[in-house]
């Protein structure tokens, strides 16, 4: 049996059949693996949140450190407490921020704020954990898409991230975040850490990301801080 494999009819039928077969195969693969991939992506986020709190994700479960996940509006009021909605918002953090939906993880002692910004070559993101005073940094996790290995990409190393805990984000009533200072941080300044040598643009990106993202949550922080001061004032009165 010999077809003329170069006739137009044959070519068209051949392409159609081939494309249909390939499409079915790929759809089946995508459907079959989707649950696993989604679980991986979700697990990755939870791991980073636990890491940001300074705990070891290998031994500490997400559920044991995070009390609830919420979405805030621009005034700091809670608009949703649905966990699935919060993680969905994380998938498009840029869009969520633009739509004034701010996901926040309330830990047993403090909060974890997701971050999103621009590095030198592409997006950078991460999570920063604050203590219950909404001021002291408990820990941070930073990641990037394509910063230069050995330079800008150093923001993703534990060595860089170890400099943040203990720093504070409030200067008076303003949220200033943490600045990555070129040439080395002033040790007495509570808002500065060392910038990455040779990674100035990425460092500036992290600085800008921290200032921008933390300010989105300022109304919530302010309210929490005011509540804490009141409690303190009350307990002082009682003591007197």
């Amino acid at each position: 049996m010999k077809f003329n494999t170069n006739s137009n009819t044959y070519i068209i039928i051949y392409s159609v059949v081939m494309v249909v077969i390939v499409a079915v195969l790929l759809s089946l693969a995508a459907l079959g693996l989707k649950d696993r991939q989604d679980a991986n992506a979700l697990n990755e986020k939870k791991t980073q949140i636990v890491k940001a709190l300074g705990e070891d994700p290998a031994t500490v479960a997400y559920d044991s450190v995070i009390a609830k996940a919420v979405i805030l509006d621009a005034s700091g009021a809670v608009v949703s407490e649905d966990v699935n909605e919060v993680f969905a918002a994380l998938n498009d953090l840029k869009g969520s921020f633009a739509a004034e939906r701010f996901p926040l993880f309330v830990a047993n002692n403090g909060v974890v704020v997701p971050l999103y910004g621009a590095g030198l070559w592409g997006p950078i993101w991460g999570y920063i954990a604050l203590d219950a005073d909404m001021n002291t940094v408990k820990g941070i996790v930073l990641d990037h898409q394509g910063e230069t290995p050995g330079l800008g990409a150093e923001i993703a190393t534990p060595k860089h991230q170890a400099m943040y805990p203990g720093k504070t984000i409030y200067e008076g009533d303003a949220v200033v975040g943490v600045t990555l200072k070129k040439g080395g941080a002033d040790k007495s300044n509570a808002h500065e850490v060392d910038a990455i040598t040779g990674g100035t643009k990425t460092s500036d990106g992290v600085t800008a990301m921290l200032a921008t993202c933390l300010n989105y949550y300022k109304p919530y922080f302010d309210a929490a801080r005011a509540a804490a001061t009141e409690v303190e004032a009350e307990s002082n009165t009682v003591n007197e």
Partner: protein
Amino acid sequence: MASKSLKNLTGPLSGNNPVIVQILGICSALAVTVQLKPAIVMGLSVMVVTAFSNLVMSLLRNGVPSRIRIIVQLVVIAALVILVDQVLKAFVYDVSKQLSVYVGLIITNCIVMGRVEAFALQNKPWDSFLDGIGNGLGYGSILVIIAFFRELLGSGTLFGFRIIPESWYIAEGGFYSNCGLMLFPPMALIIVGCIIWAHRSFNKDLQEK
């Protein structure tokens, strides 16, 4: 296994190596060789794709209309690459994140289509499959050699484990510092050059007269 089939497998490892003899697939050899682990996964992924695209195209070789054979090859290769990408995302998520776009770019790796066009369309499925495995291994082995030097000299680690002791570093009062140049793509090209040099010194028949 007949010795002729075996030659399809072993040829590309040295004498007919796709990277250092045919100078194909250089682009990804520069991109994913900063560390060993991604280099190995990349090598394995390319091997799977070359092996199966060769196998599939060899099975189809008598029915493929020669006027659209390049498109057919591209569809087969692209489908296989997407499958590999999906599997990596599902089972080795962290590595797949590290490789990011480069898995998708296997589609454009000249080795894959080069072997389909040059070998699979003229040869039987089993030989083509072995040829694919051989070329994938040949590519992967060069990647691993490059990544070994780049990770060791550039970061002082292998597979992420520290090889060069912390105490040697200048920051810790030692005398050593990593070679930052190793982390950049040009250094991969220089290492490829050194490998080609060494390889040709041992294989005199490859030297141009």
